[in-house]
């Protein structure tokens, strides 16, 4: 199995989720994160104090998929999360050795 981790723009989450569901992926986990990258942040001024805020709100989506589904999942994310503007985000794929569904104790592919 593979873990597909995508860091995307928050307002794209719903679209990405439904694209993945369409692929038959029934589970995913989402975290609110802050991203630093090419996309520029902004400046905040509070009275005299000026702060350059370089971290931008992003959403991190983690989905564990059977190895065979990785490419379709990545493609679906790229397709739906893309706006073409700086800051669209990244996808990272890594390997999961083992998976367990807590409720049933099922493991690996059947646990996803």
């Amino acid at each position: 199995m593979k873990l597909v981790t995508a860091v995307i723009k928050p307002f794209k989450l719903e679209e990405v989720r439904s694209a993945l569901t369409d692929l038959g992926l029934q589970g995913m986990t989402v975290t609110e994160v802050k991203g630093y990258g090419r996309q520029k942040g902004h400046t905040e001024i509070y009275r005299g104090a000026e702060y350059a805020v370089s971290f931008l709100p992003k959403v991190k989506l983690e989905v564990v998929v059977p190895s065979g589904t990785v490419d379709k999942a990545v493609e679906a994310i790229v397709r739906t999360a893309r706006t073409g503007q700086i800051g669209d985000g990244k996808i990272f794929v890594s390997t999961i050795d083992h998976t367990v569904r807590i409720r049933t104790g099922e493991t690996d592919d059947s646990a996803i």
Partner: protein
Amino acid sequence: MTLGNSRRIATTAMAASLLCLTAAAAFAQAPATPTPNKGDTAWMMTSSVLVLLMTIPGLALFYGGLARTKNMLSMLMQVFYCVCIVAIIWVLYGYSMSFTEGGAFNAYFGGFSKAFLAGVTPESVVETWTDGVVIPEYVYICFQMTFACITPALILGAVAERMKFSAIVLFIPLWVTIVYFPIAHMVWYWAGPAAMIGAGKAVAAASGDAKAAAEAALATVTSNAGLAFQWGALDFAGGTVVHINSGIAGLVAALMVGKRVGFGKEAMPPHSLTLTLVGASLLWVGWFGFNVGSALEAGATAALAMINTFVATAGAALAWLIAEKVFKGKPSLLGAASGAVAGLVAVTPAAGFAGPMGAIVLGVVAGWLCCFFCTAIKNAMGYDDALDVFGIHCIGGIIGAIGTGIVAAPALGGASWFDYTANKIADYDMIPQLITQVKAVLLTLVWSGVGTFVILIVLRVIVGLRPGTDQEREGLDLVDHGERA
């Protein structure tokens, strides 16, 4: 004397004052300049403070909580700015445009004789609804100022989350000048009780040739009033001037500014119903200044307005909850808050005219109809009145305006109105009164709708109304103000 010329106000104020006047008669033969009763002054100052509380933080939180986090500060800012700019304009020329004689255009707006508050001193007093009862003019100016401050702020909910601040900065002063001051003048400006009662008495006392002269004098006095006031429209605390006015302006603005980016596609849940509830509570609390203060004195009419403001609101909140329970399965906090505001809006014009049972009925009807409007009808129509300014303030205001014509009837426990020219409580005639109410509603809808449209057309050309799509996505807090909530 025709109906159109009569002057109307809650009768209880006068009834009480008549008692006092009788009692005082033995001591005071000569009509001296009246001095304010300090109890009245205390209450009117308290009322002014309450209406400010209702606006900031009340309305600001009510609206802000319904917005998304990224637009929270912009919502607060817009309301706060609105209060500040209107307060200044009010003393520069707004008060004068609203509450002085306007010469040739007196039916529509006032003049500039009190621009910069010229001639007003701490000792200046203004008449109330009761002959012989006065309050300090500065207090009256402050009280009315708070009404001028909150009305345009109400509109902001309709265009929440997407109208850029620079456009709002210009919109507010233009709107109060072109729409609010005239409508306030049309509905509330009149010659005052002393002139009316005096002229009425002169007619009654005169005979023969003098009769015609006295009647002419009376006609002059009665026609020294705003258009809707001349018609005899009943509006105790601003159902037309404040709510229908801002509600229709909100609809026009929502249509002209357009839908929010993502509207209908992305979820836009309120970011903090907690703050919305705090806002709704402060609106209720502050509305006692609004409605009860509109009695302009701490007397019997004030007492009536107070109880009505309690029970109509409670009734409307419960009605909305029941509707939600029946049609959606779950009564919601936002429903309770929305219902309460709908009830407050509806009881505003009726506060000093209805009896408590009539007020409850009025509240319940407003709760149901506004709920129906903000859910079913609005969805069907598809416009993006973000925080339901039209559905609550305009619809609720219309229900209140027309309902006032009904619940003011003594047969239904209402208090009727006071006919100053006859110096007695008027015999109540419901059908003509309802027609008058409808006319006043239409006048407000047209004037405000057209005025708002024109202003926004102009602003769209000059500065533009909206931020870019990306900026709107980022949120107005950062884009307009460089801050985060």
